[in-house]
């Protein structure tokens, strides 16, 4: 059994006068650099009537800025040998580039220009509404299990608009978005004091700091918005909903549970992550062993913390899910009963030391692999710095998971209560050979 180790990060920090927090993670092992900007705004901050706006706005941030006409951002990143992307999450939006190290200053310039003065035009807004609608058709409307469970489960588990609504957005809301909405959203949420800039890879620290000052110091200061609490009480009964999916060939379900606030109870949250691994990571995991191979109830089952499939990616409230796909002749309740039985067994008896060590070893390997990709490492550092104030957390998960005890996993299992959860079922409803009409 290997000793549990974790990637080592040598983070340097500074905060500019305009409030921008900067994290540097030097690593000269390969001649590449990455730059990421994380803004403290996600789906949960969208106003009523503007579902999908945070993601739509992410698209607009690629549409040009004062020094860069439309298409220039992409062309300059890729024409420098680099790659780029952005993504919108429940609590944050990130933008990143990975490039040959010779392009570091160019990447900083590109991020600074759109943080300072993005071009928001009616024409680009209409164009990107069309693009986002195609993205939603691709990932949700035109495929089986579209939005399962990240769009479909939250409205069952949560009551408030912030936590329950569809982060991709309704077509009607997207179409009603205006340039004025975009301007107000930028001024409110894209202040430098509401962002974290992460620079990782092959550079000299002092030179990189000088370049950060050169390009970001004159981004005008604006006050960071006051972040509201999105807390809401856990459900006091089991909540259920069914979704008819005309493209799905097999029934499925997702169970959602609330988890401890990672900001105040990191150990409790981490115990849920370990529990999810004990339940479904690998063929020897408890639910896979029992439900796929012993009882032959399901074709697949998986558990995890975080609606995007990764933990430590949101603030409170966050969600643990157990999802399964099963044959039509197996009822949801009979599968759920087995889930509950296995979870109760963990709550009563705990788990073995070997199960915990296996979980820790797998997480250690997973984190090393993730961190070996510079883009993944940079984005994880930025997200942890933004959400929890500690970029180091991105590398500490294996040792945190290694510290979880059998008692903590048993306590976590005891909290997966049937009377405080959401169950979303997917019912195939297509007639043979019939695909659905446009749902929008």
């Amino acid at each position, binding site marked *: 059994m290997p000793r549990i180790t974790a990637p080592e990060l040598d983070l340097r920090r500074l905060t500019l006068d305009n409030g921008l927090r900067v994290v540097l993670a030097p690593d000269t092992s*390969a001649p590449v650099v990455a730059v990421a900007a994380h803004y403290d705004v996600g789906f949960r901050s969208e106003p009523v009537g503007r579902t999908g706006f945070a993601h739509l706005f992410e698209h607009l941030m690629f549409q040009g800025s004062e020094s860069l006409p439309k298409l220039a951002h992409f062309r300059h990143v890729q024409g420098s040998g680099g790659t780029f992307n952005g993504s919108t999450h429940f609590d944050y939006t990130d933008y990143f580039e990975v490039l040959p190290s010779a392009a570091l200053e160019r990447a900083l310039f590109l991020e600074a220009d759109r943080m300072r003065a993005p071009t928001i035009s009616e024409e680009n807004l209409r164009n990107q509404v069309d693009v986002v609608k*195609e993205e939603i058709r691709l990932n949700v409307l035109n495929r089986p299990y579209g939005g399962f469970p990240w769009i479909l489960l939250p409205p069952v588990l949560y009551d408030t608009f912030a936590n329950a609504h569809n982060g991709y957005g309704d077509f009607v809301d997207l179409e009603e978005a205006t340039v004025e909405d975009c301007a107000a959203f*930028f001024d409110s949420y894209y202040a430098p004091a509401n962002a974290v800039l992460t620079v990782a890879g092959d550079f000299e620290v002092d030179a990189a700091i000088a370049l950060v000052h050169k390009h970001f110091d004159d981004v005008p200061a604006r006050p960071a918005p006051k972040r509201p609490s999105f807390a809401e009480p856990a459900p006091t009964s089991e909540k259920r909903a069914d979704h008819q999916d005309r493209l799905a060939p097999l029934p499925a379900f997702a169970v959602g549970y609330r988890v401890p606030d990672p900001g105040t109870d990191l150990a409790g949250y981490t115990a849920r992550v370990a529990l999810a691994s004990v339940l479904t990571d690998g*063929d020897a995991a408890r639910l896979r062993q029992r439900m796929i191979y012993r009882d032959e109830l399901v074709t697949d089952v998986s558990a995890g913390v975080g609606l995007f499939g990764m933990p430590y990616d949101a603030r409170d409230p966050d969600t643990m899910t157990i999802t399964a796909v099963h044959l039509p002749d197996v009822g949801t309740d009979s599968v759920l009963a087995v889930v509950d039985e296995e979870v109760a067994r963990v709550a009563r008896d705990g788990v073995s030391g070997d199960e915990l060590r296996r979980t820790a070893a797998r997480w250690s390997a997973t984190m090393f692999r993730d961190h070996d990709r510079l883009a993944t490492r940079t984005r994880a550092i930025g997200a942890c710095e933004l959400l929890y104030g500690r970029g180091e957390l991105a590398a500490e998960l294996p040792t945190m998971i290694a510290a979880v005890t059998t008692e903590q996993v048993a306590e976590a299992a005891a909290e997966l209560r049937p009377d405080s959860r959401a169950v979303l079922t997917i019912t195939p409803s297509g007639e043979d050979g019939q695909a659905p009409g446009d749902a929008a």
Partner: protein
Amino acid sequence: MTAIDSQQTPRTAAQIGRTELGPRPLPPLGRQRDGRAPAHVDTVLDNGLRVVAVRKPGVPMVELRLRVPFSGSHRTHPARSELMAATLLAGTARRDREAVDIDLARAGADLGASVDPERLVITGNALVSGLPVLLDVLADSLTGAAHRADEVRMEKERLVAHLAMARSQPRTIAHEALQKRRYGNHPITRELPEPQDVEAVTPAAVRSLQRKGVVPRGSVLVLVGDLPPQQAVDALAGALAGWTSDREAVRLPPLPRVTGGDVLLVHRPGAVQSQIRLSAHAVPRTDPRYPALQLANLVFGGYFSARLPENIREDKGFTYGAHSFLEFNTHGAALVIDTDTATDVTAAALWETRHELGRMVVSPPTQEEFEAARRYAVGSLGIALSSQAGLASSVLAIVVAGLDLEWLRGHPARLAAVTRDQVVAAAAEFLAPSAVTGVVVGDADVLSAPMAALGGVEVP
């Protein structure tokens, strides 16, 4: 610098987009440092297995790729090979399925197997300290996978369910249609087995297929990680010494050349979005025209700053993504263009795609487009090789192509030597509209009329 209170004085979009200083100049690129050339050993073991081991520090991990050519001409081969792969790592005489997983997990290791009509690939990774366990489980499975009757039976049921899931995905439907359109009845078109063929497979047939087909001669194993390459080779030679066979792994029969022709419209009733999948003949990495073709493809649709996505996404909003890429097989290569687009703009998107293909001939890549594509090709290669997993997959791809690590290292220089004239010639030869065939999968009730009117489309 004055702080602006957005609550009291909301700025307009025009005010947000301007600063007193005005537009600023793009900083130049700095001087690029070269990466260190990794130490490697490229050899053939006594059992005939080609092994390439590469040292790549950074994280204390190893990445393993084992590729076994695994073609078969019989109609039932896909069903047998899928079940063989599904039970290959599900137990041996020494370990049951649970023990395989437990041993791997303790070592911080993972192993998985997948097949397609061309090859079996076993992908693995482990903490360096877990390499002996990883190799032991691999060798145990290669030489002694039990394919127990109950495991085969359970995996048959799961496979039938997974096939139903896969065939409900638009991308799978489109891929199957494209394969048939360009390759007819060649074995490469039989990617997913038929459910009735799965039902008929016996455990004996699965065991026989492994014994005859999963063999070292003709196969390649790449191991990249934080250990000296000779040490890796020694570990592999020791662990895999018992994996032997007189047979040679079965390669895919040569594919017919992709020839241009009408696009086939495939009906998917009520679909809200269509899949456009086009293809043309291309040349593999061993061909002297390859670097120029690589750049011509980038200019057309091989990255985001390319003509096709800039037109049908960033200008017209027809799609979320439009791509073209080179797809390599044992014998050669094909160019593939793909985009998904709403039903009401599908005909227009197909028209614009053809228009952009035509422009590759009549308005060939400019100096600026050519140079940007070249910088991207060099830079993105460096990024891909900067992680162990990326390096392992890249090395496997070039070894399968009949090349070696020296080729990979020399590729930036090869790209630097390409002239614009060569890219223009490659564009005219490989991206001409007349060279392209393909499929559109979508709602023919809506699409038939406009597509028939465009011409060059075979409607149902």
